[in-house]
């Protein structure tokens, strides 16, 4: 049976930042360390995240729309924790910024920060999907 390292794909999207000086979208080593090299579990966690993240972003939008900062804060908090498991530091920072603004009840600021978070989450989802395809191939 091949070792986990033999399954590692060489997907550039999973490890390389889109611009110089930026943190990578994902940290492959951190991801594998989190699941203790269990690629089956990693696949399962990625599938959970891909299914859950749209609902969490919707929760933030709902918090803005309904003027409920605690709802937006909770969605951002959960997103921050989830992406942390994949070493997605940029997405985690974007989620943290939204969470902080919501905690301070600055919903206008949440609204301003949300597009950046949506972009980061979209990139994480894309990179995770590419990673899974790389593992499968």
């Amino acid at each position, binding site marked *: 049976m091949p070792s986990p390292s033999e399954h590692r794909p060489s997907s550039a999207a999973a490890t390389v930042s889109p611009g110089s000086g930026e943190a990578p979208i994902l940290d492959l080593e951190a991801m594998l360390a*989190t699941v203790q090299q269990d690629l089956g*579990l990693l696949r399962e966690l990625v599938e959970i995240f891909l299914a859950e993240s749209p609902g969490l972003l919707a929760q933030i939008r709902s918090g803005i729309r309904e003027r409920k900062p605690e709802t937006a804060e909770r969605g951002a908090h959960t997103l921050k*924790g989830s992406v942390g498991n994949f070493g997605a530091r940029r997405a985690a920072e974007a989620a943290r910024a939204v969470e902080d603004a919501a905690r301070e009840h600055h919903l206008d600021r949440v609204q301003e920060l949300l597009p950046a978070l949506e972009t980061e989450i979209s990139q994480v989802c894309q990179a995770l999907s590419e990673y899974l395809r790389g593992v499968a191939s």
Partner: protein
Amino acid sequence: MNILLAEDDRVESRLLEKHLKGRGFQVRTVFEADSAWTAAEQDPPDVILLDLQMPGGTGLGFLKKRGASPRLRTVPVVVITAVKDGLVLRMTEQHDVLSVFTKPVDLILLDVTLESVRSRIVSRPAVRPGP
């Protein structure tokens, strides 16, 4: 050993559940604070892994109720939190929390903590029926 895992982040909860079951623990997973309280009261676990920020209540609320519950106040609680700041540390000191882990949870340290609980349970003298 029975563990009640209360964590609303589905990624984190699945990760912990899989790990803990792999270590031979029985795990019940709940995603909301009020569900955690109901599950704990109905069938007190040997240890509770508690996320401080969940829908349906707060971890602090859970800890306060636990302190007032004769059935649950001796059940060890391990807190999982995004940030281990002064507020969290004061809260956990006041409410007799066994240990505090920041996310993502260090599974090796968690194993050490849970094994210490398990060894206490195993070494606890069995209650023998009277003659």
